[in-house]
């Protein structure tokens, strides 16, 4: 049981390091088991070192840095255990322009193998999609627009 866990953990950790270095170039991060001998005794922490900085407590990271770290973890899990589709609601909320671009490019790349449905208000995200659906509200009733372009 411990064996299975450690194999899963190692693979997700290696994915995590790779994804993080793409989203935060020149930064490094890794997943760390608090208790190596018996993983189930301890928890799982994240050591993240954004570009040019020391490793710092997780809570001291900025809003944008926390988002990129969390997204790296999510994408790492997804690479190990892929789902057929993903629905993300404003995951780019804290990100500055450059980081929104990186996340959008990564989703674009991953969308080869999985379907993504992403709610966003940010231009770089919308521009990286292969289709955008507009939602508007009229007198309390929501409706979808732009669903008939692209020959659908």
């Amino acid at each position, binding site marked *: 049981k411990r064996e299975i866990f450690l194999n899963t*953990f190692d693979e997700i950790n290696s994915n995590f390091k790779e994804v993080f270095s793409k989203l935060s170039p020149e930064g490094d991060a890794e997943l760390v088991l608090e208790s190596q001998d018996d993983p189930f005794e301890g928890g799982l922490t994240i050591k993240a070192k954004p570009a040019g900085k020391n490793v710092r407590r997780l809570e001291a990271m900025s809003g944008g840095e926390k988002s990129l770290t*969390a997204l790296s973890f999510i994408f790492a899990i997804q690479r190990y255990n892929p789902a057929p589709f993903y629905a993300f609601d404003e995951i780019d909320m804290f990100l500055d322009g450059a980081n929104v671009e990186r996340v959008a490019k990564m989703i674009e790349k991953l969308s080869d193998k999985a379907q993504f449905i992403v709610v966003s208000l940010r231009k770089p995200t919308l521009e990286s999609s292969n*289709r955008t659906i507009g939602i508007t509200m009229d007198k309390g009733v929501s409706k979808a627009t732009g669903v008939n372009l692209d020959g659908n």
Partner: protein
Amino acid sequence: MRVKEVVLNNFKSFGNKTKIPFSDGFNAISGPNGSGKSNIVDAFCFVTGTTSTNQMRAENLTDLIYEGENGKNPNYAEVTLKLENENGELPVDDDEVEITRKVKETDKGHYSYYYINGNSVKLNDIRELLAEAGVSENGYNIIMQGDVTGLINMSSKNRREIIDEIA
């Protein structure tokens, strides 16, 4: 497997039966504040079998039923997910699989109905079917608004348990 379309019928702010088709790859949804974007993500939670009404910003399942301005108050809300199954990831014979979840309010209380390709089933049947294809509540494939940093704020034990469930 991918989502071909989601149909929202009286679900939250979608007071008219609304079909939203999706393409392969990277779909984006945008629009003004309060227009209904997050409600679509709630519809995904609902139809894939989420049991926590809080996650969909509702107290009771009946809060998910469209409540209109002009007294137009239907007594049920329904969401249908149409999945393309050409690779046979879902253990069903058909190339297309339709999952429907409905909640109806009567004076005796509320009732829930579940269907797979028109056949009446239990909620667990839907959850098991989707789990076969890799869609599950803890798979982190649905992320709600504001939740992205939740992974950072949670305790290290809870974070490790995420790996437990995957392994």
